[in-house]
């Protein structure tokens, strides 16, 4: 829709160069007389029709004070052909980067703007319209204090109307460039110019901005495009990222999301993951600094999974799915670049794990007989959420033979007992990822998540005496982790306590259960937790807000 300034509006000032390289400015103040601006492009039939009329007006009213200025949307060579063809005697400026055309907001050329003192518009129109032209001539003459000259001749055979041609501003490539120019001014991040002879990928690696794999250079155009994925303002601080507790704005999240390879519609998920991970409860500083394997494992629930193509099915922890691969990676890059958490510095993991590149899955809610994770944690089913969990890499739970919930629950319990060490009980959180085939076995018997948790606790419960360090294995439960009532006056476990069975997990609810994976395969997975609870890390769920539909991104550069 055209935004050409109408009568009474103030026309934008500009300064361009003319065909000879001289400055042509339109910045008239209150004392300036009338000015007629004629925007055109060389290959437009309606511009061809209009140009002779503008030239006549220039010759008729120029001596009386009307200033006429052409503004060409073409390069010099095309403009010269147009000027020569019509014998134009007025000044013509080159709107080489089309910023002035964009400022004037017209959709079609020709566009004519008659302005008076203080650039106040007296009349304007685009395309060709005889009535508009007559009105413009009358007002131009009035501004010059002379009668309206005869500009339109019968032998011209002019139509009443002829639509103009599309302004070059709307060419896709130009529109994108102009949008970047306008939007870039709203971005606050420091600009880094890559030396002209450097490969951008090598440059970014040399600056330590990557995770060992190449990252996408975050150009202004890409970051602006990324920001279209959220309704939240670019300057909003969404988290303070450990270890440096540096503020992460939506813009900084977007920059790192670009580098990770995200599409704009993933950005709200990355933001929510950052919000969840940068809470006291999740304790990202500890998760990062530990010598253990823990890293943020992201579980996405709700409708957004389908909207952004997040994999919830086969190979859910594996490669080949852009949303999964890049959302998890974006969070890791944010921690590295904004938070300053780098391996070998604050990140002191002894062995690390592949999930420290990226780890993001969707719950396969559609094939689960249970309510999904986010509903269990208090969110409506139609809400989209992320849950971050400080987890190890996934490990296999293999059981192709169990046909009852009781048997399968036992298998899962015994596998879960190996988390960290079989003799470590009263542990904190674990993430149990139940495959669809296993989920069906539970669903057949209407076995609830609570039933499964109880079964796991039942089969893993062992007398304390089997869990203490001994000559066979010096690893075992530390006395300090036992309830105080288990210890006698000498600080040693009482006889009664030694015979008390202790389940693997402190609380049933420490067993987080989601359904994910392909529909074939009687394999589930467990992801062990880290030091869980108030002194460690607790899983955190956050709603994904600020979602916005995004156009096809294939042409983003």
């Amino acid at each position, binding site marked *: 829709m055209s935004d050409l300034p109408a009568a009474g509006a103030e026309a934008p000032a500009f300064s361009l160069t003319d065909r000879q390289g001289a400055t042509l400015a339109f910045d008239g103040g209150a004392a300036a007389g009338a000015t007629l601006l004629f925007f055109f492009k060389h290959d437009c039939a309606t511009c061809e029709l209009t140009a002779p009329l503008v030239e006549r007006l220039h010759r008729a009213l120029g001596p009386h004070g009307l200033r006429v200025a052409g503004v060409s949307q073409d390069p010099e060579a095309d403009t010269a052909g147009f000027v020569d063809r019509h014998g134009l005697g007025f000044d013509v400026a080159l709107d080489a980067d089309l910023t002035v055309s964009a400022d004037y907001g017209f959709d079609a050329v020709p566009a004519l703007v008659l302005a008076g003192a203080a650039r106040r518009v007296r009349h304007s129109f685009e395309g060709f319209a005889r009535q508009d032209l007559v009105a413009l001539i009358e007002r131009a003459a009035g501004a010059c204090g002379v009668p309206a000259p005869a500009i339109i001749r019968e032998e011209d055979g002019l139509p009443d109307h002829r639509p103009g041609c599309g302004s070059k501003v709307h060419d896709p490539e130009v529109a994108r460039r102009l949008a970047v120019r306008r939007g870039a001014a709203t*971005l606050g*991040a*420091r*600009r*880094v*110019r*890559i*030396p*002209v002879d450097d490969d*951008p990928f090598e440059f*970014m690696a040399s600056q330590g*901005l990557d995770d060992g794999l190449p990252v996408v*250079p*975050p*150009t*202004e155009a890409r*970051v602006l495009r990324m920001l279209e994925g959220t309704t939240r303002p670019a300057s909003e601080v969404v988290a303070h*990222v450990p270890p*440096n507790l*540096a*503020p*992460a704005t939506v*813009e*900084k999240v977007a*920059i*790192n999301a670009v*580098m990770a390879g995200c599409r704009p519609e993933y950005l709200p998920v990355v933001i929510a993951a950052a919000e969840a991970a940068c809470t006291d409860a999740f*304790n990202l*500083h*500890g998760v990062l600094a*530990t010598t253990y394997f823990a890293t943020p494992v992201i579980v996405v629930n709700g409708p957004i999974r389908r909207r952004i193509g997040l994999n919830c099915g086969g190979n859910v922890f594996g490669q080949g799915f852009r949303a999964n691969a890049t959302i998890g990676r974006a969070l890791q*890059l944010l921690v590295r*670049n*904004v*938070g*300053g958490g780098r391996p070998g510095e604050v990140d002191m993991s002894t062995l690390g794990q592949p999930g420290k590149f990226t780890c993001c899955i969707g719950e396969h809610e559609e094939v689960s007989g249970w309510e999904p994770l986010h509903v269990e944690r208090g969110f409506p089913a139609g809400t989209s959420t992320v849950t971050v969990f400080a987890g190890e890499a996934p490990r296999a739970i293999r059981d192709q033979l169990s046909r009852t919930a009781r048997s399968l629950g036992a298998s899962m319990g015994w596998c879960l007992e190996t988390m960290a060490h079989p003799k470590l009980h009263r542990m904190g959180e674990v993430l149990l990822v139940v495959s669809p085939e296993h989920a069906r076995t539970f669903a057949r018997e209407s076995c609830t998540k609570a039933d499964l948790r109880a079964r796991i606790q039942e089969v893993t419960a062992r007398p304390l005496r089997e869990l203490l360090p001994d000559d066979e294995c010096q690893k075992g439960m*530390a006395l300090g982790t036992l309830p105080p009532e288990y210890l006698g006056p000498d600080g040693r476990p009482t006889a009664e306590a030694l015979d008390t069975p202790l389940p693997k997990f402190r609380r049933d609810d420490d067993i987080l259960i989601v359904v994910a994976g392909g529909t074939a395969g009687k394999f589930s997975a467990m992801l062990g937790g880290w*030091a869980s609870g108030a*002194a*460690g*890390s607790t899983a955190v769920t956050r709603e994904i807000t600020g979602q916005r539909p995004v156009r096809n991104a294939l042409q983003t550069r």
Partner: protein
Amino acid sequence: MRNESPVILDPTDERAPMGRQPAARPARLDGPLGIIDIAKARGDVFCDEVERLVRERLPSVDVIRLRKPTYTKPAPGDLRDEVGARCRAVIQALAD
């Protein structure tokens, strides 16, 4: 081929990290010495042994035993303040 140098947006927090310069190592231990247990398993055993050795070899030095609430998080502010106010030097046990 590119004909102009591309511009990227800085993905970092844009502030040079504060240089964490440890205080100069004292030439000799002649003031209160803090021994901080970071609360990892058996850290107390190690710290006990360090304290025994300090008392044996430097009987004039006062020893102050301190302990972080948990090894999983940075030392809380009041503990850092206490170290700054009471100790001339500290020994911190870092592992189990």
